[in-house]
């Protein structure tokens, strides 16, 4: 079980320390950790599990903050990592972003949260809904409220009803004037395209995000028009397994507010919405680069925020790149970004120019990988469609809203 949790800043300073058991872990372990990670090559710096001479360390890095947990006993590593991820998510949610200053300003809240999330090294309550009932977040609303009501404590007076309820993720009895449920399909497309333009791998990882504000204890059912396309799914604990197994219907009592209802994966997609075609020809110490971007299969909605990024190989001395559409930026660390924005309907944008190679080098041997970013509102590219959403057990009328969004995940084009 975990013995201690540290929060470290991006300069290795201990922002916060939470001892969990009687075996006090000395702060010097952080120095060891920091020296160790800095002695590693860059791509090994964030190795999640490290063995120090005295402890096993787990680290999770978010926005420059390192969440470091120590243990001396054998334990499931994923449990520690998963827990640290939750801690990061919860603190992020509470403070509206993670940075050193916000943690230092609110460290009492962070201590309180850790106190409820883990006791004696074993995780307890990590459901954000429930935690918010025990410890009010330090937002402006609650500050205003506290001025009005004169209650300046950010701890709610009573224990959340749900700690005793049979639906541990839901507040016992929320009340709303407008009952509403929003369901979002958010999909990420991971694709790898090789230098011949062949789609090596293409799959979609999607999430069904639900934001529910319904009075009482609602029982919702959500069904898809084409559930058979899903290759694998995983659910929030509120989803009942049997209805899904027999009829592919999601039946659940939702937590109050925003939550992730399910994740899914769709494999073996045949095409991508846009194409990116890089061409590199080198001769006599000069390399000509030409990249074309365009629509391949029009998804019916506009493709937005298109961005192509790549790392110039170290052997390149200088680069001169221009584009017909959008802007090209080359940073000092040789990262080149071409921001296209929206792809125009009439003409495919292109970027071209020359790269000057190191003296003595005739041809380019290391080829950059182009990472592509895009966003399409209103379409779930996997083709998954929500059929209907019904509310049982509560006799209210309620408003339903559906949205979809697809964006590029690890979308890479090799050259």
């Amino acid at each position, binding site marked *: 079980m975990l013995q201690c949790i540290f929060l470290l800043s991006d300069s290795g300073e201990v922002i916060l320390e939470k001892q969990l058991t009687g075996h006090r872990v000395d702060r010097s372990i952080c120095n060891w950790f920091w020296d160790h990670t800095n002695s590693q090559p860059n791509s090994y710096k964030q190795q999640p599990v490290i063995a120090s001479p005295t402890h096993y360390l787990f680290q999770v890095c978010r926005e420059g903050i390192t969440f470091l947990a120590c243990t001396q006993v054998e334990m499931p590593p*994923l449990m520690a990592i998963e827990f640290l991820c939750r801690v990061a998510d919860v603190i992020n949610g509470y403070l509206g972003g993670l940075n050193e200053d916000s943690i230092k300003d609110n460290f009492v809240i962070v201590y309180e949260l850790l*106190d409820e999330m883990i006791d004696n090294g074993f995780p307890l309550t990590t459901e954000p809904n429930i935690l918010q009932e025990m410890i009010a977040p330090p937002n402006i609303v609650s500050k205003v409220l506290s001025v009005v009501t004169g209650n300046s404590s950010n701890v709610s007076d009573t224990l959340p009803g749900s*700690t005793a309820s049979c639906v541990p993720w839901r507040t016992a009895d929320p009340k709303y004037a407008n009952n509403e449920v929003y369901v979002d399909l958010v999909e990420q497309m991971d694709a790898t395209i090789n230098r011949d333009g062949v789609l090596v791998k293409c799959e979609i990882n999607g999430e069904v995000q639900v934001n529910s504000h319904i009075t009482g204890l609602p029982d919702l059912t959500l069904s898809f028009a084409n559930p058979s396309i899903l290759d694998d799914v995983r659910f929030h604990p509120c989803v009942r397994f049997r209805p899904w197994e027999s009829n592919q219907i999601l039946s659940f009592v939702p937590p109050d507010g925003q939550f992730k209802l399910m994740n899914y994966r769709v494999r073996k997609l045949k095409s991508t919405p846009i194409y990116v075609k890089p061409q590199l020809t080198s001769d006599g110490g000069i390399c000509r680069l030409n990249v074309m971007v365009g629509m391949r299969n029009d998804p019916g909605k506009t493709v937005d925020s298109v961005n192509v990024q790549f790392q110039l190989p170290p052997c390149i001395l200088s680069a001169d790149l221009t584009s017909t559409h959008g802007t090209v930026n080359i940073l000092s660390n040789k990262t080149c970004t071409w921001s296209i924005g929206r792809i125009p309907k009439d003409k495919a944008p292109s970027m071209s120019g020359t790269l000057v190679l190191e003296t003595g080098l005739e041809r380019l041997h290391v080829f950059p990988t182009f990472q592509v970013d895009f966003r399409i509102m209103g379409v779930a590219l996997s083709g998954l469609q929500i059929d209907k959403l019904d509310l049982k057990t509560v006799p209210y009328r309620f408003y339903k809203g559906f949205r979809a969004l697809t964006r590029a995940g690890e979308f890479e084009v090799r050259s």
Partner: protein
Amino acid sequence: MAPPPPQSNRSPSPSQPSGKSEVSDLKLQLRQLAGSRAPGTDDSKRDLFKKVISNMTIGIDVSSLFGEMVMCSATSDIVLKKMCYLYVGNYAKVNPDLALLTINFLQRDCKDQDPMIRGLALRSLCSLRVANLVEYLVGPLGSGLKDNNSYVRTVAVIGVLKLYHISATTCIDADFPETLKHLMLNDQDTQVVANCLSALQEIWTLESTTSEEAARERENLHSKPYVYYFLNRIKEFSEWAQCLVMELVAKYIPSDNSEIFDIMNLLEDRLQHANGAVVLATTKVFLHLTLSMADVHQQVYERIKAPLLTQVSSGSPEQSYAILSHLHLLVMRAPYIFSSDYKHFYCQYNEPSYVKKLKLEMLTAVANESNTYEIVTELCEYAANVDIPIARESIRAVGKIALQQYDVNAIVDRLLQFLEMEKDYVTSEALVLVKDLLRKYPQWSQDCIAVVGNISSNNVQEPKAKAALIWMLGEYSQDMHDAPYVLESLVENWDEEHSAEVRLHLLTAVMKCFFKRPPETQKALGAALAAGLADFHQDVHDRALFYYRLLQYNVSVAESVVNPPKQAVSVFADTQSSEVKDRIFDEFNSLSVVYQKPSYMFTDKEHRGTLEFSDELGNLSINAETGDSVVPAQRVEENDKDLLLSTTEKDDVRDPGSNGSAYNAPSYNGSAPSATSQPLADLAFSSTGATGQAPAPGLAIDDLLGLDFSVGTATTPSPPPLTLNPKAVLDPGTFQQKWRQLPISLSEEYSLSPLGIASLVTPNALLRHMQSHSIQCIASGGQSPNFKFFFFAQKAEEASIYLVECIINTSSAKSQIKIKADDQSSSQAFSTLFQSALSKFGLP
């Protein structure tokens, strides 16, 4: 929450100039507020407390404010209380006297109306961890366990565990474990139940060393009623508690198959859980339950594949890594199941190197006839990667696939393309691979040599690559037109060659070249021998001297020593023995998997015990693999004389040695040992077990040396009933040799008595029993429910030996026996004897 810095650090350092004065400032202000009841006091207190705590957090010692903080703690404001608890919890241990001051208000808070305050106060009270205050804990804990609010009860249960760690006797005297047991089985709230389970597991485990009852209780937790009780409520538990329950279920041994299927059906939906820790814990249960059913076990792999792959692609990089490490283990165990999912192991550009490395290994493992081409194509893409270590790894992966695959044609072409890429690290890796490839597929020499011949030795700098190139120059000097001249120029630069490995190879290569093309090489050989004799490195010097004397003695003898005809290598040695891999598998869902080492190899020294040899084992086999073609053979010689090595090590080392060098006697069949020695390597030969069997340690050493083989001399064969020599001795080496040579004369399956099964908690119990029936054990291993033994026995008054492999599965109460015998005609009689001995096991 820093520990108070030592005295020397307390002097104000330049970075914290205000430290000390600020603390005294705070002290003054707190004192003023302590008695005040004016409105707004709480707010100013809160600001002050925040300052104190922030000082504490950044590591300034504020323990001198203890008294003032306690004085200010009389408040109804819960945030103030929380900050105060935090402060007190941090400094109570160093200020035990002052901590007494806090007891009073904490005890009062434990009786507060608000359950939240009751819980928090109780938690703080138990976190003081001051030994002389334990008497104040018992009362509040007792009432906390009976509290009608579940929040307080959850806190109290963990409080009991904390109390146990401060003072075990107080905890036991107050009969808290019994109360927890009652709560665990009856409480409505599952979090209370889960906390009871984790607390009791810890308490009983620690107690079991001294108390029989605690040991029994702990065993009981794995019994059917308990496990079913938890399983029936599993869906009510929080996700973390579910992990805890799964750990328990994984240790449960179901009585029959239908029970196994019931449990799996019940838990199947857990594989769909959003929390990866739950998924992995469930996976472990599934894998362990089905170990004894091969076909179901395989179905389990198929079933868990998709959830694990989803977890990999949808989680954060840290989660992906943890899952991938486990997936890596599964892929290595059953690559064929994952061979159609190879695309999941393709590396993404942005992934950290440690993830890419795992993926590369998996890609190597899953390669088969149908996907090799695509995998190798993908790997070749990585060779042009900006990340040089990964580029190297991927070239090595291509090589490994080439060594294990059938369609070598295409791969060799790729490797040769690498050589033409003109990047030094690519060339280096490729050279090493081409060398290995030639050792396995000598038929490719023409194609490879043509390309290798074009590589200028000046462009190869890395010792390993240079050694490989030199080896090829020596080995194929008759085909490589300018080999003698290249070698000659290398010899000329002898002094600039810093690596002893390269110089050793150079000596050997020049020798080989000399045998094939004497006139051209003579000059180089002379120079090389002279330089070698003058070399400061002992090995180089010795080898040069050895060659020199050999040549002096007789050139043709020298050739037969230095360059005899070789067999192609069939299997390269594996760096990790399958015994180690099995152990890691047993520890699925633990740190062992991430480190790719069983826990005994990396947890504290005191846990290591007799199994320590396995550490050396890993090193040894790695050494043997990386060594050049001559060194392993020598090392094996040494190992054979090393009496203290256990049989597993010798077995492991001998294989790479004999395969790698192919210097063995012609009768030795290169491909046979790897297959037949497998069952032996599976086993854990504990060093105590190996020596403990022999009548006396002195005798055992004689045995290992092979000096004293049989005691009795051959007389007339004794007719049945068969009697066995009670003092039979056999050394492990002979055992292995015999096991390889002899055919199986009898293979049977017996049922075991329930009593026997019950007594078979550790392998050692059976050993002693069988010994009393004149059947000796040479090796044993395994964990409940699967045990494996190797026995031997000797006919009385005769040298005839019986060898037995015995696999016992305690959950099905079956044992599978394979008997091999020198004298096959009597093996049936022996089997009867063996069976009767086995059936008496466990009987009083």
